[in-house]
């Protein structure tokens, strides 16, 4: 009798501690949608043949803006649905962790735009920088998020470094058009994979 009651108490405590420490709202749907968005943006950029650095940076800033708005909307909806505060302590910590690398990524992009630096190498460098910085942001947020978010961050960092390494190999720099495919593949593909993993494990957890 006491055992059941104590186990129940421990479960309540665990849930409350997770609610206070870990951010877990709408992660799977966010990842899935961002995955599709990334793939769509990559496909659009490649199919349109946008080789111009301004178009390249513009497309991906626009994609990031849409992704940001979409994420906010989904988190807000989920918070309302669960009758939980939108700006919860874990949400605040996640945003604080995400902000510095994401702000740095945006700064580099606007710096290139402002300096009219249309050197494709700089834009390719920016692409790698975005991946690495985004990975750092995810890794930092992973300290307040469950289930593999830190590894997810490391995958972006790895992808960024690998792209940079690949750029040093060929004698001729690839066309920026291919950059859309790389961005779409890395951002879209990784988000989609992580979203599927989250959805799949959530379904399995529910079934237990």
């Amino acid at each position, binding site marked *: 009798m006491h055992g059941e009651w104590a186990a129940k*108490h*421990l479960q309540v405590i665990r849930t*409350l501690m997770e*609610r206070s*420490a870990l951010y877990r709202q709408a992660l799977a749907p966010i990842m899935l949608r961002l995955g599709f968005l990334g793939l769509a943006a990559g496909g659009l950029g490649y199919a349109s043949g946008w080789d111009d650095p301004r178009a390249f940076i513009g497309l991906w800033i626009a994609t990031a803006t849409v992704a940001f708005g979409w994420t906010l909307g989904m988190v807000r909806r989920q918070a309302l649905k669960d009758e939980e505060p939108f700006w919860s302590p874990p949400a605040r910590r996640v945003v604080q962790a995400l902000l510095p690398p994401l702000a740095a990524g945006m700064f580099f992009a606007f710096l290139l735009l402002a300096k009219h630096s249309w050197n494709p190498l700089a834009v390719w460098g920016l692409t790698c920088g975005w991946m690495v910085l985004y990975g750092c942001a995810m890794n930092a947020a992973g300290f307040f998020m469950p289930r593999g978010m830190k590894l997810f961050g490391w995958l972006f960092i790895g992808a960024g470094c690998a792209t940079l390494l690949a750029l040093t190999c060929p004698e001729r720099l690839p066309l920026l058009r291919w950059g859309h495919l790389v961005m779409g593949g890395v951002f879209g593909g990784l988000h989609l994979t992580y979203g599927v993993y989250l959805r799949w494990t959530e379904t399995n957890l529910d079934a237990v």
Partner: protein
Amino acid sequence: MDRNQPGCCVDPEPFLQLDRVIHERGRMAIMSLLAASPELSFTELRDLLKMTDGNLSVHIRTLQESGYLAVTKSFHGHRPLTTCALTPAGQTAFARYLKLLEQIVRQTRPEKT
């Protein structure tokens, strides 16, 4: 009597040792949230636990009087901000409370042979 039967030969000691201050539902919830977070504001606690201001104040005062909670009052902009955090004594007491609960759960589970 089968010693492996749940409920057989239960030592009541851990149950008796449970800290009555923490054991109350509302206070246990406050302690749980603060154990996983360095500090939380009064408003955050209230929103997370869906408690009324009065109810939360009473629980916070009880925990504060027991030395488990430190309450800091400051200003955020022009608005007063009350922040709560566990004291080292509170952290120890909460850890001990959890340990006792685990002990109770272990006791009542049949031993694996």
